[in-house]
């Protein structure tokens, strides 16, 4: 077989593509990240906040964007589209068309002078047309790569930007390029398109000014948006009092061809309502739902807090017929109906929660690359292989496969990596470049010889700050032996100049006064390392973003402030010490706890990439909850799929299965775990928790006392064995879910109930089937089941949130009464079979296992991941990962995707020979530390343990685990005896900076 290419192409650089690229690059594969626009970030970059944590979207995404922008194994190809893929899986030749940006990417420093001088404007797509941008533009200030591009339609070619560009980066005649790239696999993540609200004429979008889409409202909320974060009515700029959110605009709507549910709109509407309330106190949001679909982790109590704490008014089971505008006040009156009762209500602002359409170039990609789309235009996938497209070697992740939220997308993004890596695992590390460095000069004991480099940054600094006088001043500072100025310090030729100066003046400390260390510190650290200096002998003074740009009208004061900032940086530089990044060995093996669907999938994915796996299962058999599932998914029964999986696990030479065995104790840390089990101690580099969860055993509704009361799984068994004889079946939803004791929603019961109801109707159409429910949460493509059930005559009855239906056994005849919110009266049904949709409860063992692994549980006792949005399958403690129902109840395809994701994340650890610890970490001064233990509980990462001092046993002292310490410095500030030091931010160094700041410079 042709040998495999150790590189992968990722198409589309939204959050999904970025996560995939990072995981691939960290697993030793070369990545070609192809993005249609001029900068990466996709739709998430447009969001202000994200649910359910209300994180600022840019704050949590920017570090990933910067990391992928600078990763040496990732080649960013922006403004490019895939034309053709030829060859066999493992050895593809991809032809790309890179549309010209008309700006030379290498030369452009992103300073923005060109945009300031450009005379023509057009609508800014990033801000949904609510703001103007110039013909030469960058999407947003934190864009990666920070490169400007010219939009040819708007540009009149007046030539001003080329003249103003100091870096001479503007090239009007720059041509498109055709590129050919050799890769082993392709992962498609082109994202989704927003539904065009104009198609719903009755809501008046595009006609009434105060009707906006949710993404436009998101821009209004954002601090970088058109209104700087204040919510305003587009008609007259007033702050709206009453805001209405209309759900399911372009979703669950056959008329516009989108019968599916877009899964995310309920949640983002709730989030936007909460944030709007925060931005303008007194704002009263109302949301018109059909069903409130808050099914994800922590979603339900986010919905509850919104309703109770933030006063978001929720109209359930409502349909908004039309929106009319009052020509005078431009207010909007909504005509809506709940059941058969209709009325109207006036609002200042209406937000349409638009659904998700398949990616705009999905059609083009499927034709050109030869993979199938499903009937809605999304990429067709199979329940049991959710990350594969119909063409082998090409995988899919994110909302191109189906509408989904960010946590699921990120998990799938890592999952797709596992599938691609399995295909080309023997070519790992063949295409990646490892940097070779010259040996490091030992500077310990030398007098500080500091070199100061002051930057003009074109005119960004030089235009306001008198750079030459700052250079002169730097020369007067003690310890400074060289000071000079550059036009652009970050340009490649200046890096060479810095290296020369280091050699010429044998510098042992370097200070650069230019822009922000957040983006440029690693670049300069790398340069001085190439000149043989330890990278930590480096300090930056931010005289651009935090001086020249914000004091443009006071050049003398800005120049004086720059001198102070340089003096402070030099003061700290004098005390800088070389820091070592110590190396920790990594065991190339993994442990998977839990042999259910998630555990087996993860184990197989790791094994397929050639790494040994220990699969520990408490029961005597593999399969977990799958055994109990009898219905069909597509045309295959989960049971048959399970047997196939178990067969694969048995045959795999890399997997050792430990049945009837439980984890007793877990020691060690990332890369070097010790897992004690009844069959002895297992060493592993990474651990995956896939312990699953249990079906809730109901105690209410006479379950267990009357055999006519069964759970959905038991009903499935009867249907499977065709032993169902009932004539009148009643199902009750949210049994053991969404109540005080278990406030969360178990996500899968609605869909299972509706599926079983359909099976009953198909088996005997005359049987009456009633489903008593709060909200029907058949999200995504499962919405088809809800419609099919309705067509087959299943009747649905919505009972109020607070009052569950009641049951009585009247002389052997079961009577179920529930308050019908539509008819607004009690309804009594006499079923001969009552089916309870019991939710899913976490394993009792979670508590104990969590303690062993030192990982937290969420308040609902499921395991708590590191970050719900952006690290959904990682634990905060490095090296330990999470998948399946142990994380949160989920469907089969979601479990498989998340399990593959956990496998990939584990491989990013175990595929490495060693792990580098952070340079800036805490260090104990053993002479001073008396082991008081104040620091231990303070550390969020449990990196500190109090141990006996080996030199004299009766004395205690703190010990820092370098593998786990993240270098935040919390313990250092907490230590009462100043025994704990933070390398790089030592107390002495901080004092030096503080004194320098307040010393009157000359």
């Amino acid at each position, binding site marked *: 077989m042709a040998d495999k290419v150790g590189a992968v192409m990722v198409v589309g650089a939204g959050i999904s593509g970025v996560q995939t690229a990072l995981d691939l690059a960290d697993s030793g594969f070369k990545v070609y990240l192809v993005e249609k626009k001029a900068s990466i970030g996709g739709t998430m970059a447009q969001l202000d906040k994200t649910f359910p944590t209300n994180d600022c979207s840019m704050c949590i995404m920017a570090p990933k964007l910067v990391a992928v922008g600078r990763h040496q194994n990732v080649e960013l190809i922006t403004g490019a589209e895939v034309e053709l893929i030829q060859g066999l899986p493992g050895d593809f030749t991809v032809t790309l068309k890179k549309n010209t940006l008309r700006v030379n990417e290498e030369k452009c420093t992103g300073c923005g002078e060109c945009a300031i001088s450009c005379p023509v404007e057009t609508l800014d797509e990033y801000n949904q047309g609510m703001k103007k941008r110039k013909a030469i533009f960058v999407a947003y200030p934190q864009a990666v790569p920070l490169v400007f591009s010219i939009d040819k339609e708007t540009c009149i070619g007046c030539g*001003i930007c080329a*003249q103003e560009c100091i870096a001479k980066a503007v090239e009007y005649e720059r041509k498109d390029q055709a590129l050919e790239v050799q890769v082993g696999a392709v992962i498609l993540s082109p994202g989704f398109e927003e539904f065009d609200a104009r198609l719903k004429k009755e809501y008046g979008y595009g006609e009434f000014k105060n009707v906006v889409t949710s993404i436009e409202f998101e821009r209004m909320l954002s601090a970088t948006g058109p209104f700087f974060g204040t919510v305003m009515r587009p008609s007259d700029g007033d702050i709206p009092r009453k805001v209405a959110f209309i759900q399911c605009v372009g979703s669950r709507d056959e008329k516009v061809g989108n019968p599916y549910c877009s899964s995310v709109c309920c949640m983002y509407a709730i989030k936007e309502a909460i944030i709007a309330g925060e931005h303008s106190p007194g704002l009263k949001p109302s949301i018109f739902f059909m069903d409130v679909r808050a099914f994800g982790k922590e979603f339900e109590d986010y919905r509850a807090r919104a309703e109770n704490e933030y006063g978001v008014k929720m109209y359930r089971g409502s349909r908004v017929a039309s929106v009319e505008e009052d020509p005078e006040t431009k207010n909007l009156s909504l005509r809506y109906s709940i059941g058969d009762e209709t009325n109207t209500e006036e609002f200042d602002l209406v937000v349409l929660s638009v659904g998700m359409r398949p990616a705009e170039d999905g059609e083009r990609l499927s034709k050109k690359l030869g993979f199938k789309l499903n009937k809605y235009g999304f990429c067709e996938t199979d329940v049991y292989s959710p990350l594969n497209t119909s063409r082998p070697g090409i995988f899919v992740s994110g909302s191109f496969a189906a509408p989904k939220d960010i946590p699921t997308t990120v998990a799938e993004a890592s999952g797709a990596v596992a599938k691609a890596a399995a295909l080309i695992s023997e070519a790992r590390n063949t295409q990646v470049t490892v940097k070779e460095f010259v040996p490091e000069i030992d500077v310990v004991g030398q007098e500080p010889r500091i070199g100061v480099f002051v930057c003009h940054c074109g005119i960004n600094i030089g235009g306001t700050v008198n750079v030459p006088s700052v250079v002169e001043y730097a020369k007067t500072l003690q310890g400074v032996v060289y000071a000079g100025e550059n036009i652009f310090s970050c340009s490649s030729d200046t890096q060479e100049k810095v290296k020369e100066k280091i050699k010429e003046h044998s510098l042992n400390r370097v200070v650069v006064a230019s822009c922000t260390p957040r983006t440029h510190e690693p670049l300069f650290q790398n340069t001085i390392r190439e000149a043989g200096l330890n990278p930590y002998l480096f300090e930056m003074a931010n005289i651009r973003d935090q001086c020249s740009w914000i004091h443009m009208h006071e050049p003398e004061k800005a120049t004086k402030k720059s001198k102070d900032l340089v003096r402070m940086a030099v003061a700290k530089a004098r005390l800088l010490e070389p820091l070592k990044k110590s190396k920790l060995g990594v065991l190339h093996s993994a442990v998977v706890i839990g042999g259910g669907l998630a555990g087996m999938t993860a184990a197989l994915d790791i094994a397929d990439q050639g790494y040994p796996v220990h699969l520990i299962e408490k029961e005597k058999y593999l399969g977990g909850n799958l055994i109990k599932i009898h219905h069909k998914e597509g045309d295959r029964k989960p049971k048959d799929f399970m047997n196939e999986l178990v067969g694969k696990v048995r045959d795999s030479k890399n997997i050792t299965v430990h049945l009837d065995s439980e984890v007793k104790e877990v020691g060690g840390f990332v890369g070097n775990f010790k897992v004690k089990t009844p069959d002895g101690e297992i060493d592993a580099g990474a651990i995956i928790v896939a312990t699953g969860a249990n079906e809730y055993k109901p105690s209410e509704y006479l379950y267990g006392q009357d055999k006519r009361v069964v759970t959905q799984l038991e009903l499935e068994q009867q249907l499977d064995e065709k032993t169902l004889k009932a004539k009148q079946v009643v199902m009750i939803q949210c049994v053991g879910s969404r109540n005080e004791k278990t406030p969360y929603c178990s996500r899968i019961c609605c869909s299972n109930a509706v599926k079983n109801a359909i099976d009953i109707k198909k088996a005997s159409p005359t049987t009456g089937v009633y489903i008593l429910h709060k909200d029907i949460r058949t999200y995504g493509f499962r919405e088809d089941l809800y419609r099919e059930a309705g067509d087959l005559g299943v009747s649905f009855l919505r009972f109020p949130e607070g009052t569950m239906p009641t049951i009585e056994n009247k002389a052997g005849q079961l009577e179920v009464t529930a308050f019908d919110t539509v008819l607004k009266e009690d309804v009594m049904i006499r079923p001969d079979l009552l089916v309870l949709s019991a939710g899913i409860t976490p394993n009792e063992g979670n508590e104990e296992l969590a303690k062993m692994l030192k990982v937290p549980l969420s308040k609902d006792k499921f395991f708590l991941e590191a970050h719900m949005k952006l690290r959904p399958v990682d634990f905060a403690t490095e090296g330990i990962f999470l998948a399946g129902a142990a994380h949160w109840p989920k469907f089969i395809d979601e479990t498989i995707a998340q399990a593959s994701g956990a496998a990939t994340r584990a491989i990013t650890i175990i595929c490495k020979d060693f792990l580098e610890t952070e340079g800036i970490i805490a260090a104990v001064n053993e002479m001073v530390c008396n082991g008081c233990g104040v620091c231990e509980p303070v550390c969020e990462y449990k990196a500190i343990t109090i141990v006996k001092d080996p030199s004299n046993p009766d004395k205690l002292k703190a010990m820092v685990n370098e593998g786990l310490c993240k270098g935040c410095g919390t313990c250092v500030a907490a230590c009462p005896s100043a025994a704990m030091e933070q390398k790089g931010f030592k107390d002495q160094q901080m004092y030096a900076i503080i004194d320098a700041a307040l010393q009157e410079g000359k």
Partner: protein
Amino acid sequence: MSEDARVGVFVCHCGTNIGGCVDVPKVVEYAKTLPHVVFATSNLYTCAEDGLSSIRDSIKENNLNRVVVAACTPRTHAPLFQSTCEEAGLNKYLFTFVNIREQCSWVHMKEKDSATEKAKELIKMGVARVELLEPQEEVQIEVIPSAVVIGGGVAGMAAAISLADQGFPVRLVEREKELGGFVRNLGYIWQERREAVGALSSMIRRVKNHRNINLYLDSEVVAAEGFIGNYEIVIDTHGEQKKDKVGVIVVATGALEYIPEGLYGYEQYDNVITLTEFEILAKNKKLPKLSSLAFIQCVGSRGQDKSYCSRICCNVTLKNAMNLADNWKNMLGLEEAGKVVESIPVEKAIPAEIAERRRGRMGRRDREAGEKDEAEVAPTRLDIAVFNRDIMSYGIEHELTYNKTKEKKVRFIRYTPQNRPKVSHEGDKLVIDYWHDTMQMQMKMMVDMIVLATPLVAQPDAKEISRMLKVPLGQEGFFLEAHVKLRPVDFATDGIYVCGTCKGPADIPEAVAQGMAAASRAAIPLARGYVQPESLVAFVDSDVCSGCGTCIEICPYNAIRKNAEGVAEITVAACKGCGNCGASCPKNAIIMNHYTDNQILAEARAALQAVNG
């Protein structure tokens, strides 16, 4: 306003031209009341000697540092009064001229009172302006006394010789390996029926051994930076780059012959050739023996491809037609080679009145020469036809030739662009199918050879020279002179001149004349040795300018360029002070000396203040 302004106002009666309408004494009284006016008087004729001396004396007595003269029009008298101020030691730019004659008294004769009011206000405006004026120094910029001529054709050589004769060193740069340009193709040139080569050789000899001309053959000028009097040029002589400094540049790059692809069977039949190819054949005595021949005029010009008329093709055709008719120096190959027939006597006399008419038109020619010509004319054995739309035989000699050819039985057949003659062949004979207007019918003519009169076209690489020297190209790629009538051999940019066919078709005498004209124009700055531009120039405030380049594009005199710091900088010598860049600058960074915004507004506002007290 350096020190405090001390303004003197001198109001002129101009006899009765002003005094007769404007109440001058009242105006003088009013002038005295104006702020900063320390002295005001009137004169009968300020431009007369006593007027001038009164200005000189009062400047000294009252140590005036500003002078306003209210009289006639500055266009004629400003220099006179300014030099008077200079004689009194006052910088001539601290002066303002108020026109109260042509633009006041003469045009408001019937409204004496409001004319007087107007005069007062005009003076008030003049004083408001003069207060804000600053002294200007006129800087002299030295001119390097040497020139470069690009192109060694007849025009270029003429220019080079004429400049060299005036003692200025000239660099003559010719792309080909020998001098002569287009004229080298020609056989006999008309006037003296001398061979072109002969006429050329004397010129080439003069160029080659002229001590003031250094000749660069097989070389090109590849770069030229700078302004009038200080051009740094780079001459690439077969690979080696030579730097040089010259004061002026003369462009004489000539033109090429148009190749009429696909017209009238050119390249299809081998006996269809262009006029130049005919000249070359004639020159090398390779013309085949012909019994009949046709010329077709305006091939590819006047709208067929090129839009213009190429001016000289008709006259070249007429010359050749006449020579053919006379078998001049048996240019047609005879059967018995070697038998030279000088001339064949005329069989019968020419009717008296035609001879008379012809002699009369001979102009300065003496009578005998007129008779002698007739004698040489040989009988026409060759059947010649000239298909034409119009015969452009302008001037004296050409019209004369035209008449002669008619006498020699050359047939002139007119065609219209709507139905041009068509060329095909039967056997070895070429057939011309044409519409005979008088007979109103389609006719056929069998000929041995067809000569296509094609236009001269611009050099394809004219664009490079235009971009190098930043001089404009006009219609169809020919160079565009500063003013077609008044400055025909100058470019708009000072110090660069143009002559010969590179600016439009021209025959040899015209090209030579233009060469000499360009030389004399170029000699002016060279002779003077310096240029002293008026200091009404623009000034760029480099702190404000962001280097957007808008002014550079706009300036017709290429007087602005970007300096090392990337900001705009005015070339004082080249700037004419029109103010276009000043008004266009998007950053308002350009100030016009002597016509700043403040000065203009002050002058205009002075008129408005009077309105509302």
